[in-house]
Structures are given as structure tokens and as C-alpha cells.
């Protein structure tokens, strides 16, 4: 398992091309390309729904004031 994780991270690092310069970030600067921002309030609302209906939570972020629904 640990080997697989290391291999995955190395492959991921290898996928990165030459550093993108500030003047090349027109596409990346769009709101729909920003993790955590692209979907607006949907992420938090979805996390709340699925936290209430499933046995899992977390990963995307944490902290935010709960409910006792699980």
C-alpha cells in the first residue's frame, strides 16, 4: 500500500510540466478552475447532506459547526 502511494505521488509529480508563469494563468485564474471555490456553496451543502446520510466525512476540509445528525 505504502509503495503504491509513493509510486502514485512520484507519477503525479512527474506529470507536472514546466512551472506555469504568472502571465500564463488566465485559464487557471477562472473561478471554475479553483478547487473549493468552483462550486460555490454547493460543496458545503453537499458535505452536509452526505455526512447526514453516510458513514463517512472529511477529506475536502473540516470545521464549520455541526449537527448531531450522524
Amino acid at each position, binding site marked *: 500500500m505504502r509503495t503504491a502511494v509513493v509510486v502514485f505521488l512520484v507519477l503525479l509529480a512527474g506529470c507536472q510540466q514546466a512551472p506555469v508563469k504568472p502571465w500564463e494563468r488566465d485559464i487557471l485564474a477562472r473561478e471554475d478552475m479553483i478547487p473549493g471555490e468552483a462550486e460555490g456553496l*454547493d460543496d*458545503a451543502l453537499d458535505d452536509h447532506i452526505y455526512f447526514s*446520510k*453516510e458513514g*463517512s466525512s472529511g*477529506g475536502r476540509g473540516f*470545521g464549520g459547526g*455541526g449537527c448531531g445528525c*450522524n
Partner: protein
Amino acid sequence: MQLKKKPASARRDAISVGSALAAATCALLGQTAGASESVEDWTFDSAVLYYSESDRVTAVEPVVRGTRTFEDDSELSLKLTFDSLTGASHNGAIVSDTGVQTFTSPSGSTIYRTNPGDVPLDDTFKDTRSAVNGQYTWNLSRTWRATTGLNYSTEYDFTSLGANAGLMWDLNERNSTLTLAFAHESDTIDPVGGVPTALTWQSDRVRTGTSSEDRSINDFLLGWTQVMNRRWIMQLNYNLSASSGYHTDPYKVVTLVDAAGNPEDSSTVGATDIGDGDAQLMEQRPDSRTKHAVYWENRYTRQNDDVVAMSYRFMTDDWGINSHTVDLRYRWKMQNDWFLQPHVRWYSQSAADFWRESITVAEANLIQATQDDVSADYRLGDLTDVTVGLKFGRELASGSKWNARLEFFQQSGDTDAADVDALIGQVGYTFYW
């Protein structure tokens, strides 16, 4: 919002530090969060969520978030959420094809029955929740940023207070950001009718004598956001969550069954007789839980400007639950600043070690003697969920934006109680002020 009836482990919106991670990504991209707002203006994101299950819970959740970026590039975000909940919730008992089952309400003041073939639902609750979150993020240097936040949430039988703090470090010509964050949350659970004594019979209405229980949660998050190329960005997070205290759901029971799987009467175990099929054991969960989650998100813009977003999460915990979540969205850019976005989510989990659909007399005796954990909550059993939806929206000439989505959520598991269908509707509006 509370889509299920009351407690056990805490709820986190994944918003506060999620926002900070987004802010970190924005810093990495050389811009301020909330792409098009001007400095020292407020950006308001608002939405109303409607969630409705067939024959069970219906929730309406309005939320508004104000974000302001200051001249020094620091950012303040405040969020208010309200929940209104009505309907009925599965109480943990089996779905029996043969026998009537009898239960007491959470307060113990009323008795209700479930007919053969029906999912045992407790329809005696109605709830509202209010939550407020505040998060502040600021520059420590050209490449380091810090964030801290508070959150408070209250409903009639649950209160939560939390704080978080984190650091973000930009490196590799701001093509990479590493995030390190911690959060602490303190929850207080005040069950209606008092705290039931776990592993006693519901018909006996045994209470611990205390009016409330506590739980604390510590979270750690390590994040890596990486610009892969001009069109591709990814985020990889590891989240460790350790909680201790009261995790039991005080309103859930486990049905005692005979050898044929039919609900037993309380007289079988010498408990108070309130009707047919009334041998229902109050559940008990472990007093701690440690969860590990790995989350990987990718966003890619195609040559035609459409955006593909894919995420995967693996979660494992010491209760024996392992889960996989895959989420896929395709944002189709149309003329006149319209977009159309199909969405598919797939989720699968294995059952907790202490999950049982029901128990026999011998099992109940053993569990009571050893004070072992047991729960029949379908959310801790084997589960497969699918969500399919469509979102659309438009940016207006003023710069404000609106959107709407409609989704269908379907759950299935090893028990009939796990078969849930729900409709998710939402409208949202973003404006500047």
C-alpha cells in the same frame, strides 16, 4: 440541516478550512478569492437548498456567505446557515414482513407502532438549526499565509463550538501550495427525554440521570495544491480526524428477533410490555473514533473552455468502515455566459464492525454482559449511493451570477431501511455590494 434524527458523531460542513484551501489556491494562482470582486467590496454568495426524501425527511436550508478582501490581500468570510427539518426518520429497527412493532417516542411520552412491511419511522421530531462561521486569512510574507476561524451551531438537542487554524506555503514559483491545518470542535448532545442508558430495553425507558453528553473532535489536514500545466490543477489532501466522547445515537434501537427473524416481545427478556414486537435494545457505539481520509481533486479546462472536474476520496476508520467516493462534473460553456453542468456521484461503504441488522436473545445477553457495541443504523451498514444531477446558470452583465440545480439521490444497502430516494433542488445567487 439535520437530515437524520439525532446524534452520534459530529457534523462538519467542510467549509471553513475548505474556504481557506480555496484561498490558498487563489494565492497560488496570483489572484484573490472570489475571482471578480474588487478590493474592499463584499461578495455575497447565497443559496436555498431543498432536500426531500420519499416518505421521510424534508429539509429547507437557506445560507448566505459574505466575503471581503482587503487592500493588504487579507480576506474575511462570514457565513450564516439555517435549517428547517420536518418528516420522519428510521429508528434503527428491522423491516418486518410478519409482525407489528411497538416503540416509544424519544420523550417516552407516546407509543407508536409500525405495521408489517413498513420501515419503522419516528415522525415525532421537527427541528431547526442555526450555524455561523467566520474565517480570516492573511499574508505572513510573500509565500506564507495564515488562516483562522470559529464556528458555532445550535439546535434544540445539539450544540457545537469549534475553532481552526492553518498555514499555507507557496513554492515552486507559486505552482505549488502546501497547507497544514488543525481544528478542534466541542459538541454537547442533549437528547429529548434525557440520555438513555445504552443496551437497555426501550420499553423500560431507563435513563442515565444526566441531561447531556459531550464529544470532542480534533482534526488535522495536510494539503497539496499543484498547478500541473496551464489547463490542469489538482489538490491532494490527507485528513486525520480523532474524536472522543459520546458517539451513540440516543434515538436508535436494535430489534430483538427470534430464530425465524421475527420481532420478539419484551416479555421474552422480562422488560416492560408496551405492545407487540416491543423488544428493542437501545444502541451503543464506541466512545472514540479515528478516521483517515485522502481526497484527490482534479480540474481541467478543455480547448473549447469546457471544464472537467473529477474527485476521489478514500476513507477508513477504526470502526471498520472503508469508503470510496467518486465525483464527476462536466461544465459545458454555452453562449451568452450560460453554462450547463451534468454531475454524477458514486459512493460505497463497508459496514462498521458492530453493525447488526438485528440481534437474537443469545446475542443480546452476550452484548449486555460484555457491554459490547451494537448499532442497526443503516448508515453504518453496507451502503451504495448514486447521485445524478444537472446544474445550470448564467453570469449577468452586472457581474452577478445565478444558478440552479436539480439532483436525484438514491441509497441502497443490505436492509430495506437503507433504500432511500431523495430529490435535491437548489437555487443560488452571487452579487457584489
